[in-house]
């Protein structure tokens, strides 16, 4: 009688149920905690693509100081970063490199398109060497308009990204 109950199929069902219960229990608090950590620790990759890098540098200067939000500028290796701020125009020579940088970063990774050039090509819409926006190269999370955007705008973009991360599911952690 008991032997009939303890079959591999039943054990599978039981373990699966237990897993579901555990997941349900863990998902909410752990997801909250991990998302909270990701919000306050956005480390941008050190890749400059065009002139918006000046304003990106100004954003970490004492007057604007993005480190208040946990964003450290001038970080060394891209393996430890989670944020790509595309600072302006992407030319045809830079686009493959940008994709390469994006591919080499560990999940989760976020992209901020900074400046009109990164969004649509901006002032250089008719240039022969400029891509019309970076949507074709990498997926973008937040668009920060301006030519170049003021540092305040960039900071607002970062806050918008934080709002977006809050809505995301933290399930894809490794």
């Amino acid at each position, binding site marked *: 009688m008991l032997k009939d109950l303890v079959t591999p199929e039943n054990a599978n069902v039981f373990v699966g149920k237990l897993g579901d219960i555990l997941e349900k229990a863990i998902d909410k608090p752990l997801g909250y905690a991990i998302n909270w950590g990701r919000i306050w620790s956005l480390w941008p990759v050190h890749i400059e693509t065009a002139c918006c890098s000046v304003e990106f540098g100004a954003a970490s*200067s004492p007057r604007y100081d993005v480190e208040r939000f946990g964003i450290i500028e001038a970080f060394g290796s891209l393996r430890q970063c989670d944020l790509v701020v595309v600072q302006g125009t992407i030319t045809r020579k830079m686009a493959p490199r940008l994709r390469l*940088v994006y591919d080499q970063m560990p999940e989760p990774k976020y992209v901020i398109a900074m400046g009109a050039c990164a969004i649509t090509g901006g002032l250089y819409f008719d240039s022969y060497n400029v891509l019309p926006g970076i949507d074709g190269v990498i997926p973008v999370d937040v668009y920060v308009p301006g030519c170049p955007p003021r540092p305040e705008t960039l900071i607002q973009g970062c806050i918008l990204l934080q709002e977006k991360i809050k809505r995301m599911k933290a399930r894809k952690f490794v």
Partner: protein
Amino acid sequence: MTAELPPGLALQKVDERIMTLNVGPQHPGSGHMRIVVQIDGDYIVACDPDPGYVHRGEEKMAEYRNYITNIPHLERPVIHDSCNVLYPYVLGAEEILGIEVPERAKYVRVIASELNRCIYTQYWLAIYGIFLGHSTMFMWPAGDRELLIDLMEKMSGARVTHAHFVPGGVRNDLPANFEDACLRQVNYFEKRIKEYAAVFYDNPILISRTKDTGVLSKQDAIRLGTTGSVLRASGVDYDLRIKEPYDVYEELDVHTNVMKEGDSYARSKVPWLDMMESCNIIRQALQKMPKSGSVRTKLKPNPKTKGPETVYKRVESGRGSLGCYIVSDGKTEPYRVKMSVGSFRNLIALPYLLKGEKLGNMPSVYWSLNYWPVEADR
């Protein structure tokens, strides 16, 4: 085999001892370019700069826009020095369109371009600090340049991309009480940058790191055609504000700072000395400026030119002599616009200087060339 590959892709055969490093475009010490460095142990045996990551075809675009609408995109190569980078184009366009500039506008231009030179040099100094691993030296200049950016914002309305110079003068007049604010902030700014000596220029580690590295002798500086602070750090007294004065520079008392050593330290110190000189020039210009008057000769939106003409105008920008060659064929658009920029001219010294240098000196030598990749690529 190499013949079939397109130029620039040919692979070189190298010794096994020699390691090839790709410094850039994603590298904390490269900026917007790639430097292919071959090292033997700690010594650089060859260096091949690979610019062009921000090549946006501005010279081609300038052929499709008229003399006024060219202004916004021609200042983008150096947005933190936008007045100076636009200056030769505006001077050339004025000659081609045949218009006179009011006296007051000339003084406003001088003030704006000197303020912009300080803003540019401060940012350059900030990056120089971070290239040497000195994070305080990034933050201090990056914070202090906001003072002058405030002034420029008052003057032109935009933070960095001013588009303030137009053929015929400047776009709008100075706001009320600008002179007092300018004098006050410039005085404070000068006091601030003098403090950098204590933490940066007199720092024993910095001196021992940059002295006698990347030495560019006077003959080589002339032969390579370098310009700006690189040239002046090698002992050549050449400044276009004195040698070929444009606008009202001949009425002002301008001095140049020349150092004889020609090493990275001298190249990093000359722009800093130039900033103090710029503060002097601003104070003089504020004193001599006509207190009232027109600042702009009005133009039609699509102005006509006098006829076929070629113009080559030069100014002294933050990175050295900046020339603009305009070919006009009598139409409303220029036939050809060529920007001869200081960064591009100084780039040629990089492989020359880095050869035989240690890898640790690469960032300091590279950035001491006063090189802004976006401008070089155009």
